């Protein structure tokens, strides 16, 4: 049976919106949980980088919101995390549940890609397999032969193809150091923050014309899908191109995070938000 790790996280007010967990906070909790699992059962991420010259970058994320939980519901949140490798050691995947005192947990799956680091202190790297030594730390049922496949491309195709476009907006940004991790590369949960900013700017700009958009401020996020293609770095300029759709009775936002230097939009990541009711992602 795959090993899991369960623990409590004391709440603070920054983890929540008035409606639920902050999606960015859920992603940060999940990434920290994955690091805890790795450290407990395989190897710490720090040692993986320092001793095996291997790092992880997040490639694909699905978040499914559970029953709303708020700051005043409990002193602690319960976190449960499991980890496994997939695709012959070309991916590390974690499943994380975050729950309040009652109700369904918020679930997050993140698929990371190992990178062989060869950039000195810049921590630059290229995709690689985990070494046999690292692989040996995983139990047989923590090794899945099939690779993770992101559901996002198919989801985007059906939303943009079948949904009714309600509004579109563009929110420029510049990446600053507080949004980055140790190597001056954006910390991936920042993609969620930027997508949320894009959505809220769209609501601010268009809600008088399209009142339905206000639902995105009045109900908790139901589901979030993320797919990364290239990271942003310190002082990179970019924009969130957010498009709102009415699709199968729910409000959906497709956010394209693009680099804008050189006058051409260069895709870096896509985030799709769906507001309740939304079905759970397919956990392939």
């Amino acid at each position: 049976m795959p090993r899991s790790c369960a623990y409590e996280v004391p709440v603070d007010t920054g983890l929540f919106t008035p409606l639920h967990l902050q999606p960015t906070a859920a992603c940060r909790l999940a990434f920290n949980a994955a690091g805890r699992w790795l450290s407990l059962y395989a190897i710490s991420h720090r040692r993986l980088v320092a001793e095996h010259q291997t790092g992880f970058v997040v490639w694909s994320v699905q978040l499914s919101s559970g029953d709303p939980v708020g700051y005043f519901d409990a002193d602690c949140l319960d976190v449960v995390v499991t980890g496994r490798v997939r695709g012959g050691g070309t991916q590390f995947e974690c499943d994380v549940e975050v729950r309040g005192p009652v109700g369904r947990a918020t679930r997050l799956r993140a698929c990371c890609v190992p990178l062989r680091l060869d950039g000195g202190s810049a921590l630059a790297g290229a995709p690689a397999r985990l070494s046999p030594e690292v692989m040996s730390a995983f139990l047989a049922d923590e090794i899945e032969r099939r690779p993770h496949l992101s559901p996002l491309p198919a989801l985007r195709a059906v939303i943009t193809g079948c949904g009714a476009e309600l509004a579109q907006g563009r929110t420029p940004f510049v990446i600053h150091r507080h949004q980055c991790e140790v190597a001056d590369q954006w910390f991936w949960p920042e993609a969620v923050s930027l997508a949320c900013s894009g959505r809220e700017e769209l609501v601010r700009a268009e809600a008088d014309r399209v009142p339905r958009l206000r639902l995105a401020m009045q109900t908790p996020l139901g589901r979030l899908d993320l797919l990364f293609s290239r990271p942003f770095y310190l002082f990179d300029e970019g924009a969130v191109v957010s498009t709102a759709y009415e699709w199968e009775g729910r409000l959906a936002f497709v956010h394209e995070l693009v680099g804008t230097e050189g006058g051409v939009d260069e895709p870096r990541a896509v985030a799709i938000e769906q507001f309740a009711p939304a079905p759970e992602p397919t956990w392939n």
Partner: protein
Amino acid sequence: MMIRVNGALLRFTEYRRVIDVDAPTVEAGLVKLTGEYQPLRKVLFDREGKVRATHKVFLNGDQLEPDQLASRAGDADSVDLLLAISGG
């Protein structure tokens, strides 16, 4: 040539993103750049003095293979240094 440095390398260039370098080829430009910003040398080049595989070099938007770094570059040309990394 004008060399544009990506954000992960800025701390090695005193946070200058765009640096003018006077050199006849891209390779010579990179060598001159790392002479001016010494901490960048170990990051950009391996022990044999070759550009590490984790970095991609573009000349006027076109990616250069390692054997094309001797390409000539003048004042009006731009060279981009990007990290060869995928994912988040």
